[in-house]
């Protein structure tokens, strides 16, 4: 599984695999860490990276390691890319598909008022459902796709104004 991790404003991609023995392999910056993980009570995880023992507690996006808080947001890189490329490519209110996929669901009607961040179209790509959100608050001017439709990368999906 590819995971995108944001920390201190920087974003890195981390690959997490599980090998046959059930041990995790975590790849970061070209280095591979073998990790044995044990979920603990009350939001804890014990990680052993090689034999280093690392005990982590988490609430939301905050990790607690040895008395220090780290603000770390982990997410699906695909979803992030879709969202970012979608909302940044065309005009502020125009959302396009970042990669080929299938329109799973339409969550808003044309003419509807939406909040910024409100889901408008659900796109299925690489077996993952990604909710594409309104990049700004406004009215749904036009939805260019319909449920079940296949789309190519770059297809115009909807416009908010």
């Amino acid at each position, binding site marked *: *599984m590819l*995971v995108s*991790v944001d*920390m*201190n404003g920087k974003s*890195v991609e*981390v690959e*997490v695999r*599980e090998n046959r*023995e*059930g*041990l*995790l392999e*975590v790849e*970061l*910056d070209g280095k591979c*860490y073998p*990790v*044995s*993980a*044990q*979920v603990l*009570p*009350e*939001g804890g*995880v014990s*990680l052993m*990276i090689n034999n280093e023992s*690392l005990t*982590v*507690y*988490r*609430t939301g996006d*905050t*990790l*607690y*390691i*040895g*008395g*220090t*808080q*780290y603000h*770390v*947001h*982990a*997410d699906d890189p695909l979803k992030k890319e879709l969202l970012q490329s979608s909302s940044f490519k065309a005009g502020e209110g125009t959302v396009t598909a970042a990669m080929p996929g299938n329109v799973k669901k339409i969550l808003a009607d044309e003419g509807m008022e939406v909040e910024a961040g409100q889901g408008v179209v659900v796109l299925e790509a690489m077996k993952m459902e990604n909710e594409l959100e309104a990049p700004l608050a406004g009215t749904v001017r036009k939805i260019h796709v319909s449920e079940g439709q296949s789309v190519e990368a770059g297809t115009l999906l909807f416009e908010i104004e």
Partner: protein
Amino acid sequence: MFKKVLVANRGEIAVRVMRTLREMRIRTVAVFSDPDRAALHTLMADEAWPLGGTTSAESYLMGEKIIEIARKSGAEAIHPGYGFLSENAGFAELCQKNSIVFIGPPAEAIRQMGDKVTSREIMTAAGVPVVPGFDKPDMTEADALAFATEVGFPVMIKASAGGGGKGMRKVDSPEGLEKALRAARSEALSSFGDDHVYVEKFVQNPRHIEIQVLADNHGNVIYLGERDCSIQRRHQKVIEEAPSPFVTPEMRQKMGKTAVQATRAANYRNAGTVEFLVDKSRNFFFLEMNTRLQVEHPVTEWITGLDLVAEQVRIAEGLPISLKQEDVRLQGHAVECRIYAEDPENNFMPSPGTVQRLSTPAGPGIRDDSGIYQGGEISVYYDPLISKLTTYGPDRETAIRRMCRALSEYIVAGIKTNIAFHRKVLNHPEFADGSHDTTFVDRHLDELMNTPTGDEPLAIVAAAVCYYLDRKPATGTGQVQKCSPWKRFQRSSWM
């Protein structure tokens, strides 16, 4: 011996006072505001009486109401903790009028020491060194300028009724004097209802060193060594220690004797603290007298072996102090870190909320005086101090290393705290060699904020693994075991 004592406070200090009362087999009475129905001090007390109200003014500052509860509950005495009504002379008088013992100094001593100008006068008369200053009821700009020219700039303008940095202005040159005077007066008026200000010489890069004193009704006054509180942020103490790495044995004795002089001059009783500013040449000047228990009293308790709250209660009961000056033995070294619910990365903004997880340090030489518990709420209405963590060791280095270890075990999740900030201060070479002064935090703020811990890549790996574990399908592999404790708890009949 008192049978029942009301604690007119909340949070960690109410809890700390109640612990000693319980050890003395004295029944404890808590008072609580509406948001504090489930606060630790309410839960820990033998009796708890509702004050109503939400803000401090509506609850813990309601002197009349607290007296009424003391009478109804049959409490013979009131311990005010620190803050709230602890330095309110009117409240001390009200207690007396109602034949309730106020566990603290006489009202008159509170009143006199609470006024900066009066206390300066009393100390000067008693031969206690004060920062050179100038005060006249109708001080003009010309008066102030003449004084400033004599002692040299910079000078400080301070409100007579002041405290907490309000009505205070530093003036670096004659040009700024008029504007600073005006601003200080207006701030003093709006903060304290009194625009009386005075001028003092500004002590450059001072250390803040204070002497703990005890005085009883039998004429005994003793000092219990010093505390060094030079790690401050905006006049707010952050880390304290005892003894001070800056104080020599001769200086300790001299400061101690001076503090005893000051205490006698103030006609003081009970526990108090005489605060001094100390310059680089080890000259010390009376700053103010705090007429109550200090937040940082545990470091003195560590090195003396005494329980200062127990001493306060005994003195209030009319008993003599439990030891003589010659029996005071200072042994080892203690450090205190004040744990605040605040966000150092966001200008130290208070950070109220739910304590979702709490893991407190333990083991040798650790003491945690906390007012919170796991699952409890940190209210937006009161002080963000959630705990005083203190450590002890045979020497300063051991105490500091122990504190670093303790902080590494301390987890308070759900809110922001200054735990990591403390570790950075403790690991700073200037703190380690003890050469710091009260400007330390300001001078090193950037460095203290932005130093990476080195564990950042581990945090990234951990975040990725947590994300993976959240989403991976449940398979029966050996190394990755998911055992949800919630399921277990939910099965119990309770939930």
